[in-house]
Every structure is written in C-alpha cells, then in structure tokens.
C-alpha cells in the first residue's frame, strides 16, 4: 500500500469534522416517533383479523343485494 500513502493522507486530511447535532437530536427523535406511529396505524389496519374481513365482505354483499332488490321494485 506504499504507493497509496499520499492519497491516503489526502483522504484523511479531507475528512469532514464531526457535526454536533445535540441541539437537533430531540427534534429528530420526535420525527422518528411520529413516523413510527403513522407506520403502525397502517400496519394495524392491515393486520385486522381475517374473520373481520369475511364479515365485512358478507355485509357488503347483503347491502348490494338489498340495493338491487330496491332498484327492481
């Protein structure tokens, strides 16, 4: 790696110093919690038990037939 000594030195010298994000950290944490809550809402909606979907489908079908019968009359 001797041939890379100069370029390695340039890379190390070009390193960006650490930014102190302590002032921003709290805000960033709040944003993460908000994003997680929003994600959980979607997941909880999708994780509704299958029987709920089945019952909801049957109710929609019944309503559809009632609507069709009303239209026929």
């Amino acid at each position, binding site marked *: 790696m001797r041939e890379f000594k100069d*370029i390695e030195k340039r890379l190390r010298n070009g*390193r960006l110093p650490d*930014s102190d*994000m302590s002032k*921003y950290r709290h805000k*960033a*944490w709040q944003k*993460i919690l908000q994003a997680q809550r929003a994600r959980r809402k979607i997941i909880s909606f999708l994780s509704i038990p299958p029987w709920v979907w089945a019952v909801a489908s049957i109710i929609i079908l019944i309503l559809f037939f009632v609507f069709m019968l009303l239209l026929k009359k």
Partner: protein
Amino acid sequence: MSNENEAMESAAQQERRLVAMAQKNPDDFKHLFNKYYDTIFNYALRRTGNAHLANDVAANTFLKALDQINNFQWRGSSFSAWLYRIATNEIFQVHRKSKRTIRLTSEVKDRLQDDNSSDSALLEAEEMVARNEKFKQIHAALSKLKIKYQTVLTLRYFEDKSIKEIAAILNMPENTVKTHIRRGLTHLKEYL
C-alpha cells in the same frame, strides 16, 4: 494498554445492556438513539455531502433499527456496525433513487436558507460542508467512483474503521474489503 482494553470492554458491555433494554422496552431505544445519532448523521453527511439527505438517511436508519431491534442478534459484530449497515443501505437507496451520483451544489445552501422549516443545526452542518474546500474536492472525486468503492473508502478513511469492522458492516470477507480499498484508491488517484 490494559486500561484501553478495559474501557473497550465496558463500552461493549454498556452497548449490550442498552440493546437488551431496548429489546425489552422500545421506549428505551432512545438511549441508543442518543448515543449513535451523531455518528450515523456524520457518516451520512460525509457520504452525501448534503445535511438534509444525511438527516433523512439517519432518520430512516433509526426508524428501521427501531422496527427491527428484536431481530438484532450479536453475531460477532457490534450494534453500531449493524446501524452502519442499515445506513449504508439507505445511502445506496438514495443513490438509486436519484439515478445519479450525489454532488455538492451551491443551490442546496440557498434552498436551505429559504426554507423556514430548516433547523439551525442542519444549516450549520450544511455551511460546514460548503466552507470545507478540502472535503468538497475529495467528495467530488469520490462521487465519481462506483458506490462500492465510495463505501469502503469512506468507512476506512473518514470513519476510521478497521478492515475487520468494514467487513462486518458490509458483510463481506476481509480480503474483498482490502481489494475494494486498493481498487478504489487506484481509481481515486485518477480524479485527484
């Protein structure tokens, strides 16, 4: 030397304790967040050269880590290595979405100043990037390389990671890491 070893061991023990706490109670993840947020943000900033992108990368990294904390297992690598891995994947996604290599632009600074919602800490980070000519030069050269070379060179020379640590972060053999570093440096030489 033994003091150094002891300090490293106690840091590792503390990390294990914090991870165990977070796995039991997700609210305790905040301690891990406080400990590693700056590290991950700074890594993302050095990779992207853009404080807003770095902020997005860091936020997504911790969001994913929070979701997956119960799946985290100690397999010879540290928790921070796991965070670096998630952040590296996030940066890869950013590159893929943009379909171009991220380069520093002066407009970024103007946009941030116009944006009232911008936080002062992010603005300061952005200004620090804009002021640092050496970094801008290196970053411009690095951004011309393939992502795999950018990743290993950043981890090695900006994050000061050992070959073993990089291998753990990227989940690849140590010899592959060494080859990537050598090839990356060879290509970088052409652009500097």
